[in-house]
């Protein structure tokens, strides 16, 4: 019982750190992409549609890894593999 509490508590802290890192990475990435986008518009205003398309595209590419990390964090929250391992070890 105590082991399960320890596992869940540590998983909660770990998920918090994982989500913070994913959010930070995503925000910084978008910030860099959009800042270059704004600079590009300032240099050549007539290129705005193409640059917007490219910005959204590279933004979507950059979001891939924060999304994957988010998926893994949600996996820890809803189907905790560590809890299953502890249960298996305790039951054996």
């Amino acid at each position: 019982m105590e082991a399960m509490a320890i596992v869940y508590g540590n998983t909660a802290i770990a998920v918090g750190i994982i989500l913070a890192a994913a959010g930070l990475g995503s925000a910084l990435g978008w910030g860099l992409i959009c800042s270059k986008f704004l600079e590009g518009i300032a240099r050549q205003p007539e290129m705005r549609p193409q640059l917007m398309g490219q910005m959204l595209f590279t933004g979507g590419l950059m979001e891939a890894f924060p999304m994957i990390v988010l998926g893994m964090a949600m996996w820890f929250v809803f189907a905790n593999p560590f809890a299953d391992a502890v249960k298996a070890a305790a039951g054996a």
Partner: protein
Amino acid sequence: MSQSGTGPSAVEYIQHHLHNNAIGDGFWMINLDTMFYSWLTAGLLMYIAHIVAKNMDPEKPNGLQNVIEAVVEFVQQQIKDIFPGSNPLIGPLALTIFIWVFFMNAMDLVPVDLLPSLGQVVGIEYMKVVPTTDLSTTFALALSVFALIVFYNIKIKGLVGYIKMFLFHPFGKYLIPVNIIMTAIEEIAKPVSLGLRLFGNMFAGELIFLLIALLGGASMLGLVPQIMLGSVWAIFHILVITLQAFIFMLLTIVYLAMAHQNETEDH
């Protein structure tokens, strides 16, 4: 968070909604709801395309024909920009990926409890409506694209040329083990990132819809926060859906274009 004591708790609600309607177990687990909705969207698209093609009018295109022509021209423009040479498979492949992934993703915009509760009336316990929130779907698409990448690599460059690409990229002939590892990682990363990117985006979107739905049940203002937040998130999600379908299609075209390039020996 629970209501009058008879409803499920918040975690149970979310876990119930994240459960697939599956038969079999282990590797042979087949998610029936995923199969049904992916075939349903594919069948719907085929039917619409058939109807429009039968009544096509080159002089005065009507509404749906205009839309489909715009989409086809859009995809064709992307292919013309990126793909060298000509391959009759790329156009239909890119178009299928784009509109099928878009329609499968768009099932996420249906209110999250609507179709599952209709299913529960009929007796279906679990139903996940969005096929692309299932890793099986996204990896099926990504692995099919990967099979095509390997096939076209071997067809265009020859088996010897393909193996030479592993041995001599990116460094040179004195670092062959490093080359093999790095090129193998690059090749494996293509389908893995394709599948996981689409899955991650759709899964996160669905999860936020579920959390907003929980907000509707629990807050004192009743349904108002749920409707407002749900609408805002749904509008943002329209962008994410289209973008992810577009990225999947574009990366497919880019990877197949890379497979069609003959080796330029510059080292």
